[in-house]
């Protein structure tokens, strides 16, 4: 019988006895099934080739180290090795990358917390309180329009209806309110930012 016709078990035995050609025949016989199985799991040709290669390195080491004891079940055995290596690959990829703090790299340069810290929160509260005090200084008609527009989110039409003036008057009062606020802020050099 030609060597290419031999069953897997005899080819394995022949390879263990030193016949390198037997391995080439085994690979040739099963490469499509094994590679196809790996590719179906990883969907990446390069990765599939790497895993195929690692699978057979394991096969070679086991056979040459005389640790093989599954005669007659060569293909399922190889598939199981490939399966385990695929799982190992997925596990490795899922691991969190580890960053070490160095002089050139700080993890905080890529990780930021945009919520205001305690100091910024206090400053923001102070700014809002100062602004309320400034608004209190405005003439009553201007303060009324500004509060309705900014704090109650009303439209100028609604403000006009509620205060019994035209829309243009309401707009004008808002404009003067803002100009006056700006003037008071500049005059007293008040800083309203954090």
């Amino acid at each position, binding site marked *: 019988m030609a060597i290419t016709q031999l069953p897997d078990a005899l080819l394995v035995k022949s390879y263990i006895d030193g016949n390198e050609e037997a391995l080439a025949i085994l690979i040739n016989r099963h*490469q*499509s099934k094994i*590679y196809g199985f790996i590719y179906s799991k990883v969907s990446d040709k390069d990765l599939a*080739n790497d895993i*195929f*290669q690692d699978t057979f390195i394991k096969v*070679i080491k086991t056979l*040459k*180290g005389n640790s093989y004891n599954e005669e007659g079940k060569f293909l399922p055995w190889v598939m199981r090795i490939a399966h385990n290596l695929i799982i190992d690959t997925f596990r490795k990829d899922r691991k969190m990358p580890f960053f070490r703090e160095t002089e050139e790299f700080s993890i905080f340069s890529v990780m930021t917390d945009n919520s205001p810290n305690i100091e910024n929160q206090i400053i923001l509260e102070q700014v809002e309180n100062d602004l309320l005090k400034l608004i209190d200084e405005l003439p009553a008609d201007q303060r009324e329009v500004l509060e309705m527009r900014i704090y109650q989110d009303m439209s100028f039409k609604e403000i006009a209806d509620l205060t019994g003036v035209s829309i243009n008057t309401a707009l004008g009062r808002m404009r003067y309110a803002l100009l006056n606020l700006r003037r008071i802020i500049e005059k007293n050099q008040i800083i309203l930012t954090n």
Partner: protein
Amino acid sequence: MAKLYTEEKNVTTDMYPKKETIDFILSYSKALKIVQVGTEKMELHSN
């Protein structure tokens, strides 16, 4: 002409690893010797 509502079956082509991968495996196999030293197994690679 009437429209056919059947689809052609997907043709699956056999997949094979790269020739380089196979060559590497066969070369690796030829270069590797495992010898038993006492209870330990040692790998010897000849280039």
